[in-house]
């Protein structure tokens, strides 16, 4: 019988994978639901004897089965999008059934945990430290240092908290780990627990990810006997972007409003319920089993400068070959967008690429030489964040994007500090006034003369722009967390590189 492998991740399903799977089953094939290869522009993608077909609709399958389909893409493993990658974290992607303990064990699963059990907590932390692994959630803080702090803290109870809030636009690698290889994340958490002396772990998943929640809950149940005495539990967020911030996430887990806590104390010392807590991103924890199984040196051998190992990069927006591309740090932005991503899907020129989600800067093609690396982006007024890339073509209106960034901050602010809570709303007003002068979206602009505190003479455009820059500085330096502190990145980068969209 013909065996057909089709992903059951949320993206494949949203693109119609269930219908395609049903059609193959009705045609007498044996259908296996596996994780996704990450070639998302080809979803739903079917694999038969290693050969790929996509993007499929149910009506395509007769031709797939009789060998005349125009949607054949050849051997999947040899496809350039796959062959060019260095897959550590996503080594099993596309190959295993997500909830099969057998598939996981046969393909290298639990080897890292076995190693950690063999060498003990201290040596495990040493491995993670030597690997150079930095937090993948955005800030890039060394995982080994965080773990050492928690390990050295004295307490009756410690926690591992996996940050699976993944609220940034253009990011989906956490989701793909949870939906495609959930045991890997549980193994990473169990290793972290062993290393620092934490018996309990929480995975905090955003409510926008119902498929990931279901898979993780099933995986936690199925693997409980393997990771014991470590106990993992899934918790569901409630639709607040700021709950991705680690202290806000802890408040949310405790059942409080997701307001950011001032640091210090660090969560490593006083975290969940006041106990020492490791808070790490999904990709950070998911990298650990590989590091333990293959050794710190093998991981650190890949990368660029102080950015060691691989990064699962997420190509999204108006891009021809959108999907997940894991590779060592150091690949240039231009290679990612133009060569790997194939440029825009619309076929029009690229105008801007936002890197790092709603708090990340917009980069023009003139910056395509930038190597993908924490320091290189920071030195260029940008950030790599969770490594999501959003490609825009030349129809993008960059002052509208700046307005969106400010408004997003206003909608999602936790409200704790003034520069963010008030500044973001003032920022939206300012950008609206600036846009109105260039004839854009005038309907959204308040008419100043009716305001009791309005100026007699309107400011000049130059003054308005200077005011916006000033406001951004205040938000940057006066905000308690990166929501208010980094919103200036998309705003100022749009203003700097595309002044014409602000009428300047």
């Amino acid at each position: 019988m013909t065996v057909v492998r089709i992903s059951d991740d949320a993206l494949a399903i949203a693109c119609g994978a269930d219908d395609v799977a049903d059609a193959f089953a009705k045609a007498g094939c044996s259908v296996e639901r596996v994780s996704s290869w990450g070639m998302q522009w080809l979803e739903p993608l079917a694999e038969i004897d290693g050969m790929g077909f996509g993007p499929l609709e149910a009506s395509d399958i007769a031709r797939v089965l009789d060998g005349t389909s125009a949607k054949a893409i050849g051997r999947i493993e040899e496809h350039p999008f796959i062959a060019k990658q260095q897959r550590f974290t996503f080594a099993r992607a596309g190959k295993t059934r997500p909830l099969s303990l057998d598939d996981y064990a046969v393909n290298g699963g639990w080897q890292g945990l076995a190693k950690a059990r063999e060498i003990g907590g201290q040596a495990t932390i040493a491995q993670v430290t030597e690997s150079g692994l930095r937090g993948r959630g955005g800030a890039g803080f060394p995982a080994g240092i965080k773990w050492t702090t928690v390990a050295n803290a004295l307490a009756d109870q410690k926690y591992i908290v996996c940050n699976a809030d993944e609220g940034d636009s253009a990011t989906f690698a956490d989701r793909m780990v949870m939906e495609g290889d959930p045991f890997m994340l549980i193994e990473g958490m169990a290793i972290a627990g062993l290393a620092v002396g934490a018996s309990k772990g929480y995975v905090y998943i955003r409510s926008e990810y119902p498929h990931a929640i279901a898979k993780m809950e099933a995986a936690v149940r199925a693997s409980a006997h393997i990771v014991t005495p470590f106990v993992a539990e899934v918790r569901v967020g409630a639709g607040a972007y700021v709950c991705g911030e680690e202290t806000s996430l802890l408040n949310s887990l405790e059942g409080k409003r997701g307001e950011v806590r001032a640091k210090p104390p660090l969560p490593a010392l006083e975290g969940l319920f006041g106990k020492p807590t490791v808070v790490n991103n999904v990709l950070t924890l998911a990298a650990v089993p590989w590091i333990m199984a293959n050794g710190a040196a093998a991981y650190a051998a890949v990368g660029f400068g102080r950015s060691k190992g691989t990064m699962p990069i997420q190509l999204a927006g108006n891009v021809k070959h959108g999907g997940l591309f894991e590779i060592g740090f150091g690949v240039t932005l231009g290679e990612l967008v133009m060569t790997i991503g194939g440029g825009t899907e619309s076929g029009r020129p690229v105008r801007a690429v936002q890197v790092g989600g709603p708090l990340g800067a917009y980069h023009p093609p003139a910056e395509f030489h930038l190597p993908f690396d924490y320091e290189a982006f920071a030195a260029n007024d940008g950030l790599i964040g969770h490594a999501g890339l959003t490609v825009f073509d030349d129809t993008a209106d960059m002052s509208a994007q700046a307005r969106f960034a400010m408004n997003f901050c206003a909608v999602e602010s936790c409200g704790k500090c003034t520069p963010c809570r008030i500044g973001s709303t003032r920022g939206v007003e300012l950008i609206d006034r600036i846009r109105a002068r260039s004839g854009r979206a005038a309907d959204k602009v308040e008419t100043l003369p009716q305001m009791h505190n309005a100026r007699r003479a309107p400011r000049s455009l130059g003054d308005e722009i200077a005011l916006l820059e000033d406001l951004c500085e205040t938000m940057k330096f006066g905000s308690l967390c990166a929501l208010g502190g980094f919103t200036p990145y998309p705003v100022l980068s749009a203003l700097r590189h595309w002044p014409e969209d602000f009428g300047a």
Partner: protein
Amino acid sequence: MERLEQIIASHAGREGPLLPILHDVQAEWGHVSEDAIRAIASALNLSRADVHGVVSFYHDFHEAPEPHAVVKLCRAEACQARGVEALVAALPDYPRVKVEAIYCLGLCSVGPNAMIGSKVHARLDAGKLGALMETLA
């Protein structure tokens, strides 16, 4: 009320049970009523203001029922780059369907995307989105 007590009891012994309880209540009745807030507060030994503060902080929880079917349409950057704003401008008006903004469903290379209940829909255009709304109207 009996069902509410069941829900609260099913989370007894959990650390930080408030959000899981609120999720179950919201799923059962489509909102978190004044009565539910009172009962939850008393069961968890919190003030009603505390529980109200939490309910009102999170976008997922509502204190009043939503009479319409809800389509959560992603309006975040990657879906913008793929034309969601043009789609919004051309949205047909179905009186019994509410289109709500959501920020990212993690399907950012195949947008514009939407979620209805827990079902996700990708590569939407005016025709596909209109057809989805029609099924709810």
